[in-house]
């Protein structure tokens, strides 16, 4: 069930949440790789890391304590402050 609220603004910008700007290039950027700790997520992320490093990106690896719960706020904050973008390895 959705709640409908009225826009309090001048409506000059879209009401939808705006996506973060996409990276124009990878060179010199720090990319976070977040393993949600499902089986073989690390295998996928290892491959991704190789490819990203080839293209000049720096890679930082992170893992959630458990895939059953959202990432803890500290982890999200850490990724947000340390990385330009993040790739999350979902599912098996």
């Amino acid at each position, binding site marked *: 069930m*959705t709640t409908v609220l009225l826009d309090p603004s001048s409506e000059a910008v879209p009401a939808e949440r705006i996506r973060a700007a996409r990276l124009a290039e990878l060179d010199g950027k720090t990319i976070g790789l977040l393993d949600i700790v499902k089986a073989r997520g690390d295998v996928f992320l290892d491959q991704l890391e190789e490819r990203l490093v080839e293209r000049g990106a720096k890679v930082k690896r992170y893992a959630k304590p458990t895939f059953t719960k959202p990432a803890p706020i500290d982890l999200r904050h850490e990724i947000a402050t340390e990385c330009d973008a993040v790739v999350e390895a979902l599912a098996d």
Partner: protein
Amino acid sequence: MPPTPSDSTAKPPLPAGVVAFVKRDCPTCELVAPVLAALSKDVPLTVYTQDDPSFPDGVERVDDTDLAVSWHHEIEAVPTLLRVEDGREVERAIGWHRGEWEALTRATGLGPGLPELRPGCGSLSVDPSRAPELAIRFSGSKLQARRVEIAALEDEQEAFLDRGWTDGLPIVPPTEARVLRMLEGTSRAPDEVVAIVPPDLAPCTVEKVAINAVMAGCKPEYLPVVLAAVEAACTEQFNIHGLLATTMSAGPVLVVNGPIRNRIGMNAGKNVFGQGNRANSTIGRALQLVIRNVGGGRPGEVDRATLGNPGKVGFCFPEDEEGSPWTPLNVEFGFEAGTDTVMLFPGEGPRTIVDQIARDPDSLCHMFADALKHMLTPKMVLAFDAIVVVGPEHSRIFREAGWSREDFLAKLHALTLMNGDDLVRGAGGIADGLPDGVRGKQIPKFKPDGLRVVHAGGGAGLFSAIIPGWANGEMGSAPVCKEITS
């Protein structure tokens, strides 16, 4: 058979003859049920029933459980009897009144054994728990604002914070029902443009003000004050753009005068600048939310304040006119005493003047003047106005001495003349200051209309306060006092 729930904004026609509106959950309707049954044998009678479609017995019933007919025909109580001719209502009787019913139905001897008169009950179509939703369904929304859908798993507070639509505090979510209720606080049309709001110079309608007033926590009866405040803020003289953009700390300070203060329950007494009163706390906030949301004036963007002040969340208080020895503030702006007004002043947080010893007005004025001379810095003269808020225990001293507001102000201006030698660059070991040309001259701290006097505060404590202003005149902002209309 129950009617299909109607969303129609078209007024449903009524059948000719006598039309009654009833509900079972009404003792008077129960009482007159046999009267209706008897009446239906003699006159064309249609009974609209609001709650139980099987009520009453022995008449031609129409199910109005969705209340479409009741709402459109503005039924306020049940039973209501209408006489309809040529599709138009020509007579109306409310409750049970034998004489009125007989006159309306042209029948005689109705309800023998019943009392002469019995008032009815409220119509479900005006029940407070249903009326807002019915108004949305049947009036056709008169609201233009974009609808924002918040998903079931989303938190509406977080959604509004994420979009940058709050001042950092929680807001009351502006549902359509709440905004419609807010709009009942004014007779102005929702689509009327109130002002062009800086810095984006966005046209702001009554509806947008109402949405932001809901978010701020206002009640509908505060809305006229908020509307007047938005109008005052967006004038050339007040220059909200400049006040917003300044690196200085000031923001809009609102002072309310007139009977509306008491009507909406504002607090002019104890803790007048503080927390705890809904009207004081939310009216100024509503204005600031309009500036933020409609005008696009956000801290760190066009709002360049170095420090700001806590009053920028919203700073609004009324004058204690009843306890004042002087005429109200709005008289200084050319209004009759007793007019509802809101004055906007570009100001920062209040600072207290303590004088517990003075028992004569001269001594007290010296203390006030000393405090005023130091406003911002002693070397800042003429460019900044101030509100002097006189507390009741101080104002009593002026009252008892028979001082008028003019006497008080004249004394303050005289006592705040500054010695030019003390103002020049380097004087007092302070590099900042005025050019040497002021040496040997007396310079007023305030321009002739640079001091505004407001009476407010609790009855115990020998305290008053200064609300320092921001750059006055053409380059800055001048106080604007606006009449509050319904």
